[in-house]
């Protein structure tokens, strides 16, 4: 019986950023010394390894450009013979076409996430501290007295 790998997971990191390249992200992972396998691709990276390590790595990379780096799970490990083009005689691997279609839409999605974040930060902005106006104080006193 072959060994079972319960905790091994694989994730796609799709980079649609103006300031981060797949190579930069890959270098960041190599520097971090997590025991994960990294495969650089045209759209980003494929990361395989123990669940905790991959989750930490992915979070680390996502922070490079939060709204323009997208992550999804992948079933097959990186370089798996059942999916790898090297062993299948070339051609796009299954699932590539849909990913390519979605990658075209990512800049617009990233911009929308930026806007959403900006509008939320405006909403959450607390009122600035300022001195209480005399007129406001009078109103409060009158309200208290009229109870």
């Amino acid at each position: 019986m072959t060994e079972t790998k319960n905790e091994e997971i694989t994730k796609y990191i799709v980079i649609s950023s103006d300031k981060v390249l797949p190579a930069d992200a890959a270098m960041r992972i190599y520097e971090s010394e997590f025991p994960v396998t990294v495969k650089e691709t045209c759209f980003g990276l494929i990361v395989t390894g123990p669940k905790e390590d991959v989750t930490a790595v992915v979070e680390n990379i996502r922070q490079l450009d939060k709204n323009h780096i997208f992550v999804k799970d992948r079933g097959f490990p990186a370089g798996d013979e059942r999916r790898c083009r090297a062993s299948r005689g070339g051609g796009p691997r299954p699932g590539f076409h849909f990913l390519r279609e979605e990658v075209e839409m990512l800049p617009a999605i990233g911009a929308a996430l930026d806007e959403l974040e900006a509008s939320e930060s405006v909403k959450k902005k607390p009122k600035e501290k300022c001195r209480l106006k005399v007129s406001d104080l009078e109103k409060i006193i009158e309200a208290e007295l009229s109870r």
Partner: protein
Amino acid sequence: MAKVFIYPINSLILADLVERFGHKPLTMMSQIREKVTNISLDSPPINITSEDPKLGLKYAAIEVPAGVRGRMALIGPLIEETEAAIIVENPPTNFGCVGCNRTNELMKYLIRSKNVPILEVKYPESDEEARDFVNKIAEFLSSLPKEKSEEEEKAEEEKPEEKEDKK
């Protein structure tokens, strides 16, 4: 953290947005991972056991094409644990594991008949549509109950036992 079913079931954008807003996406990839890494058999392209076609029969009759039942064997268990769903109409393309329109119809029918909160949106084709798309999804996901994660639930289950022990 609610378990959110997404359609297309292998979508990068939907899976990312659901996870980004603090919920768990139910995706085909997780099911495939279980097949290709957890079972000790090795029969490419994926490890199909004799139990899988039987599982598919729960969702589709024996007369329907085998492919529908095969796909439902993977997708059906996800539908059962669904707590909310996001359905995107007119996705640009459906290849590979979600390429069967009959399965897609059956999947959407089962989700709609489950009486869970569902958001139905159109796939964006421009920047403005993308903004609407993201806003609608963000609003929908923030309206879902923030249920406790499995780890938190386990921790809470363990706590009363500890208290009992102390008594």
